[in-house]
């Protein structure tokens, strides 16, 4: 099926090219036939690419080692479940996955294009097809997933053992979907720039796709953290690795974007900001693709040594230049219809929000690029790692949490009213009380003090509105409180979905603060039978377990864990060694509770002795809880709402 795979890839490329060109011509000469033809071609690309993907999957399941990609990433004894992971395990396959997913998203985007955005749709389609075409061309010329080997081997190399973790079923596909998905709102932005008149036509599409892709990207990043925590064995969840940063960079302007869109919807402002933000997001997303495929900095993430990076850099440059030219030409159409009235207003809060996110993005980008700068100007290679990013971005993230508390309490236009100021009183009181409690409990570092009290500030603001709103509704409509609450949430889905997402951020901030400032770590060298203590915990090294499997050798220490003297459980930290890859993968022993995680790593097994490292990580449990909360909030915000009536009203008045 390798030939079919390659040929369908070509066919999809032809269709994408046709769709791109015909779309623009059709729009210019106002021919509906041509634009519809282009649309059909675009829909077809997803169908055809699905067949290409199926061909590759089929090649894996039939162990067709005549294909180089199949031979490099699978073997005869590969667990069939892992075929899905094998699909995107390597460079070529992941490009096919990205192209396929993007074509599907593009099809949905074009099909479900909102009425207002229809005039710009031909240009949106052309942009979408252009992006798709790029990936297909790259695959056809330099990274062919269906490349054949002259002499097919009898057995393949097998899959990289790091990828056999359950997190790998979701983290790479979600992250890749999130990154390439930014191209969807971006394409609507391009359509808006070229054909829009008032700057608002793309709003509905931008909001929907912005939120969906934001949610996917957030989950992708969180899954990566979870994978790093449980599988990489260094006790942390975010290392400011250059490739992790490449995933974070587009997330930052995208988050600012989904907030800033609200201001454009409500007050017809920030039109230029929103276009700029989505251009930033797309630029960073493509930069992320570049980093993963032969960027200048090696990392645990890269798809091996690849020299393809430069073409992605060119693509990135081309996209940015065209987008900026279009922005410059059309910026008069993006004039704001209103202005900021006061510093103390929700509009100003959103502006500060945009600023803070962009600042974090700048700092991150600077940190990623600085080693190159240092190399070029001074010939010295420096490393920019965790201490740098934590010091510089930590305070800005903290400010964002504070803003998350203040912003929703701010009224639109200006705060000049006693009634509205009353909203601040309860949150301020409760957060001050929290601050005092924290100090009494012995927390003496400023950063966690500020962090915990601002978390309660935000939480109080959210809960206060929920409680007051529920009570008002239940009184007016005679509903029992739980029903009133649900109806409240459903009455204004975007806002309450947003509150739920903020709730998730509070939990995330709470968790990050706890684990960043209150972790304990210690190394112990124990012989069999010996015990060690850290904090309230005690471990006893009982035995070594050696298991030889088909393709790996497991070496585990059996350890009894005691907390406050009583037996808690048995942990089996150790590692798994894969001879064919000459690679060992750490397996940590983790016992997790809402208060803290007990995290144990074992290494250097000698006859009777082993090295143990204990981490006690407070509050990490809550980080994984925040993920589903983000999904819940996004789903609520995106549920279909009130029927859109504003168009009809305008038509009525013109009669």
């Amino acid at each position, binding site marked *: 099926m390798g030939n079919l795979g390659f040929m369908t890839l070509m066919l999809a490329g032809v269709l994408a090219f046709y769709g791109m060109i015909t779309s623009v011509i059709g729009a210019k000469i106002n021919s509906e036939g041509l634009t519809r033809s282009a649309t059909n071609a675009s829909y077809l690309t997803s169908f055809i690419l699905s067949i290409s993907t199926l061909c590759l999957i089929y090649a894996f399941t039939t162990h067709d080692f005549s294909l180089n990609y199949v031979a490099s990433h699978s073997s005869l004894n590969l667990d069939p479940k892992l075929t899905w992971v094998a699909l995107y395990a390597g460079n070529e396959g992941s490009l096919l996955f990205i192209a396929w997913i993007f074509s599907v998203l593009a099809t949905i985007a074009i099909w479900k294009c909102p009425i207002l955005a229809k005039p710009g749709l031909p240009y949106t389609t052309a942009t979408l097809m252009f992006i798709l075409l790029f990936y297909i061309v790259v695959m056809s010329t330099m990274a062919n997933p269906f490349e054949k080997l002259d002499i097919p081997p009898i057995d393949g190399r097998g899959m990289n053992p790091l990828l056999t973790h359950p997190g790998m079923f979701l983290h790479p596909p979600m992250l890749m979907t999130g990154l390439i998905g930014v191209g969807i709102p971006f394409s609507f932005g391009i359509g808006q720039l070229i054909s829009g008149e008032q700057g608002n036509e793309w709003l509905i599409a931008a909001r929907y796709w912005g939120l969906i892709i934001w949610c996917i990207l957030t989950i992708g990043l969180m899954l990566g953290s979870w994978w790093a925590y449980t599988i990489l064995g*260094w006790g942390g969840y975010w290392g400011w690795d250059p490739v992790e940063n490449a995933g974070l960079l587009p997330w930052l302007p995208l988050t600012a974007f989904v907030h800033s869109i609200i201001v454009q*919807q*409500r*007050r*017809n402002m920030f039109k230029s900001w929103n276009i700029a933000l989505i251009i930033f997001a797309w630029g960073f997303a493509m930069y992320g693709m570049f980093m993963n495929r032969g960027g200048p900095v*090696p*990392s*645990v993430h890269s798809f091996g040594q690849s020299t393809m990076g430069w073409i992605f850099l060119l693509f990135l440059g081309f996209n940015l230049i065209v987008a900026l030219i279009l922005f410059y030409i059309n910026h008069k159409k993006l004039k704001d*219809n*209103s*202005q*900021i*009235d006061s*510093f*103390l207003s929700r509009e100003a809060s959103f*502006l*500060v929000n945009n*600023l803070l996110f*962009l*600042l974090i993005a700048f*700092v991150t980008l*600077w940190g990623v690029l*600085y080693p190159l700068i*240092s190399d070029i100007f*001074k010939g010295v*290679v*420096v*490393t*920019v*790692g*965790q*201490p*740098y990013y934590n*010091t*510089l971005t*930590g*305070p*800005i993230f*903290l400010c964002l949490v504070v803003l998350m508390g203040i912003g929703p309490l701010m009224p*639109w*236009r200006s*705060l*000049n*009213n*006693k*009634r509205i*100021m009353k909203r601040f009183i309860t949150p301020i009181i409760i957060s001050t009380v929290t601050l005092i409690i924290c100090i009494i409990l012995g927390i003496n*570092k*400023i*950063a*966690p003090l*500020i962090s915990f009290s601002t978390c309660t500030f935000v939480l109080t603001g959210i809960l206060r509105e929920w409680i007051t709103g529920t009570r008002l509704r239940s009184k007016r409509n005679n509903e029992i409180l739980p029903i009133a609450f649900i109806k409240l949430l459903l009455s204004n889905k*975007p806002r309450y979905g947003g509150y739920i997402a903020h709730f998730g951020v509070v939990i995330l901030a709470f968790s990050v603060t706890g684990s960043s*400032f209150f972790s304990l*770590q*210690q190394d112990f060298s124990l012989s069999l039978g010996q015990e060690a203590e850290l904090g309230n915990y005690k471990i006893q090294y009982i035995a070594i377990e050696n298991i030889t499997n088909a393709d790996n050798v497991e070496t585990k220490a059996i350890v009894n864990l005691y907390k406050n003297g009583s037996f808690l459980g048995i942990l089996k930290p150790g590692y798994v060694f894969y001879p064919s890859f000459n690679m060992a993968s750490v397996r940590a022993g983790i016992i997790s509770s809402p208060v803290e995680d007990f995290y144990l790593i074992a290494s*250097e097994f000698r006859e009777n002795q082993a090295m143990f490292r204990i981490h006690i990580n407070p509050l990490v449990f809550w980080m994984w809880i925040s993920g589903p909360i983000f999904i819940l909030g996004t789903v609520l915000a995106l549920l279909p709402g009130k029927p859109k009536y504003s168009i009809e009203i*305008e038509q009525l*008045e*013109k009669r």
Partner: protein
Amino acid sequence: MYDLCKEDNLQLFTSLDSNKDLQLLSEFWLKKTLFIFVCLMPVIYLACSASSIPETSEQRAQSLDKSIICPICPGETIDQSQVELAKQMKNSVRDMIEKGKSDEEILNYFSDRYGLGVLAAPPKKGFHLFAWWTPIAIIAIGITLTIIAIRSKIVQPPKIKKIETSYDFISSLEFQQSLQSIEKDTQEFDNGIEEEKE
């Protein structure tokens, strides 16, 4: 969602907003709070970096371990890495702590031996101050520009634009009658208005 941008154009109500004095007073107090908060920011910033001062010497050693990259492993600190060299380096760190060396001396020891790349973050001296201060400068510039941008928009009073939608039929009798009947139907929305006179 209700669109609050058109209300400039409706001169149909005398303003029931709080009078000017209250507005100025509350703005003054809240601006003061904001100003204090903004001045606290550099303090917060310094506190955040200072708050990672470790308590015990072992914690200090761990913190140093996390600041030194293992020279032969890609991107791993000596805290994370399991190789023999990393362990030796960790032992050196602890020795030097016992001998009373400062953090800076310890980091210098390693960077002299293995080059600056062995430090997990660029040193805060010489050319590399550029690495640290550029983001801070950009942050300061960003905040300043934002404040200037907002102020310039506020100082100019918002232009009263002509009403875009045509309300020609406001004067028509048919419309007045319809409006009256609607107002009667939706009377409940006029209840519960709080008087805000100071």
